[in-house]
């Protein structure tokens, strides 16, 4: 006989979950408690163990779908009829008196009906009183209405939906001219963080264009040294070091706004966020205690961190709790940008592309390596004066790395 396993409430009143991946396929044998899928709720990423032993007949929803509690997930053909069929849909929590009222009557349920025996008896589907009234008024047979309520019960909304769907709808279903991508995972988090930041912190962005030829020459020489072998030695490395040094004189940018206590929290350490593009989206892992790292250690830390972030294996701690961030849009050949501050921080520096441009150098037109730096800062925490001084200090150190050296 075939058994359906419905999405249970995995954590004290959750209403839906995303099926992240299936660990089994159709035709595969599964044992009792064998992991069949990984699902993610608002609270946790968990593995689902199979409640039945048998052969997978059908996967009822695709990986990546977010479905409400009670949705059938998988159908498993169990080999013996002696398996106790579930007397109820295994969904325990979160439905209050309605579910209790229904469970008082031992009524045959669709899920418990064996799929492959005898003609199905007419089953009175679970439905709320309001749904029954709505169905009666519209002359709709409740057994044909797909239920989305608790345990698959038909809700009033389902009846209305069903009634509405009888009329032809324009442009229903996917169209080839558009693709609809569900928002989840890193994209969802990024979106929430950006909206929160953009609408709570008043952003100010400033720019400076600077001749960085000497930094480019310095990088060339560093790359030739044995200890830097295999490390990523780029303008980002020097910009990161310059930022950290500049923060010593301008600690206001290395701070956070504590709304609850109405305090500005100035950090005496630098956890430097580096924006990294990964296959899963943008993540901002942090180099911890960056203020105590030498240039070599910093290069090593950034190289490792970006590799881990791209592999998707970073510890969650590395994604949270930075003090200031650096983003490098220059790698995409872009001059500059107006970055949005990471929530919880007060500033983010943006490094544009470093390219050869005509530049007035020592009174004459020359071909020089030039870049545009920008910084966005939270105007609640940082005033224009401090922000400007910080940016010009970073620019000065990139212009002449000797100025950076002098402060090490």
């Amino acid at each position: 006989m075939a058994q359906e396993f419905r999405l249970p409430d995995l954590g004290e009143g959750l209403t839906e979950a995303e099926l992240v991946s299936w660990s089994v396929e159709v035709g595969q044998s599964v044992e009792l408690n064998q992991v069949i899928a990984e699902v993610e709720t608002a609270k946790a990423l968990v593995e689902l163990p199979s409640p039945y032993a048998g052969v997978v007949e059908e996967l009822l929803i695709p990986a990546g779908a977010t479905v409400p509690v009670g949705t059938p997930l998988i159908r498993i053909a169990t080999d013996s009829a002696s398996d106790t069929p579930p007397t109820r849909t295994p969904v325990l929590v979160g439905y209050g008196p309605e579910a209790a009222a229904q469970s008082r009557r031992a009524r045959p349920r669709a899920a418990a009906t064996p799929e492959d025996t005898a003609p199905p008896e007419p089953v009175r589907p679970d439905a709320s009183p309001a749904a029954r009234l709505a169905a009666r008024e519209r002359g709709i047979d409740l057994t044909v209405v797909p239920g989305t309520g608790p345990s698959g019960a038909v809700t009033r909304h389902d009846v209305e939906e069903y009634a509405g769907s009888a009329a032809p709808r324009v442009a229903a279903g996917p169209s080839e001219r558009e693709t609809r991508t569900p928002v989840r995972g890193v994209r969802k988090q990024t979106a929430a963080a950006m909206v929160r930041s953009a609408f709570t912190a008043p952003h100010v962005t400033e720019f400076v264009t600077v001749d960085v030829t000497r930094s480019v020459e310095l990088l060339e020489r560093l790359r030739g040294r044995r200890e830097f072998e295999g490390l990523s030695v780029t303008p980002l490395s020097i910009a990161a070091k310059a930022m950290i040094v500049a923060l010593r004189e301008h600690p206001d940018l290395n701070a956070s706004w504590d709304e609850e206590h109405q305090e500005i929290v100035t950090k005496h350490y630098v956890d430097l966020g580096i924006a990294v593009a990964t296959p899963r989206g943008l993540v901002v892992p942090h180099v911890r205690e960056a203020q105590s790292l030498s240039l070599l250690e910093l290069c090593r830390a950034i190289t490792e961190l970006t590799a881990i972030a791209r592999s998707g294996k970073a510890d969650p701690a590395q994604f949270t709790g930075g003090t200031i961030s650096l983003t490098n849009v220059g790698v995409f050949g872009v001059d500059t940008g107006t970055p949005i501050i990471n929530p919880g921080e007060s500033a983010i520096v943006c490094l544009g592309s470093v390219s050869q441009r005509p530049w007035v150098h020592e009174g004459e037109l020359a071909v020089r390596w030039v870049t545009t730096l920008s910084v966005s800062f939270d105007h609640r925490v940082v005033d224009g004066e401090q922000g400007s001084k910080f940016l010009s200090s970073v620019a000065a150190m990139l212009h002449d790395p000797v100025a950076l050296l002098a402060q090490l």
Partner: protein
Amino acid sequence: MVDKIAYPVQLLQPDGRRVLRPEYTNLVRDIGPDELRALYEDLVVTRRIDVEATALQRQGELGLWAPMLGQEAAQVGSARALRPDDYAFVSYREHAVAYCRGVDPAEMTRMWRGTAHSGWDPHAVKVTNPAIVVGSQGLHATGYAMGAHLDGAEIATIAYFGDGATSQGDIAEALGFSMSFNAPVVFFCQNNQWAISEPVHLQSPVPIAQRAAGYGMPAVRVDGNDVLAVLAVTRQATQRAREGSGPTFIEAITYRMGPHTTSDDPTRYRSSAETAEWKARDPIDRMHRLLDWEGLLDGAFLTRVRTTADEIAARLRSGAVGAPTPPPLSVFDHVYASEHPLLEEERAEYAAYLAAVTDTEEALS
């Protein structure tokens, strides 16, 4: 009077070799080959119980479960130190304590499934039902111990709680009261390093056991993943209680290898490196290695243990899935020992509500 907090007592290293600490080794001198095998079986069976119940929650059969994965030795070692008349007051994670006290596996899931207010008759097995309120059982244990003391009963009472509970007022009061009145109670703290997502160093900058010193209470730290050491220190502490020498505080250093409850995702707050470090100190692996060292492992024994574990897991599953759903109005039963007007009013209101829903449904169908 207060012992200096020394290095945690350990009788069994993670690699399975014995450690000689005469003052504690002597306390478990009677544990021979058969007893060692029995302890191993307890560890394996209780882990199986825990895994089965966790799976049942994921399958929608239980509302919640608090896994104890990794804490088997702390619980089995301490529970096996108790005598039949001793009484255990537990939190919500002491499934192995319940098992060792003789609770039927089929009864363990009732409360978590919501089919009963309590899972088993506490007085029959001398272990309370799970206390969800953190730390409350410390006071209950102290009160029970005081009663036993006044009755002249030579028994020990043991209170189980976690590292987080030591920051609760209930535990602080229990420690103070029991010390003032010399209550025969053992405070058994399983320091599993995490109070949900709060690491133990936020509870206390000093070892948890050191908190007992403030009350003048003797305390001992023990390797909680070492079933023999836990057995030894708990035997010592319960004996002190029975003899009328007053309370003892035990800090069993262990690790919750799974989530706080099935609603929790520990990967959000702790690193995989930390989990791996504790995996190497797994209490069952350690016992397995000891038996191996001492030539006590054979195929027949391992098969028997596995079969026992499977049978108990199957009993737990059928006990959970087959439990009858109680009628809704029974929620009002057993709240008070005698009649209670407010409760009667609520019962009548709820009955009227249920009847109204039924009438509507029948009228419409």
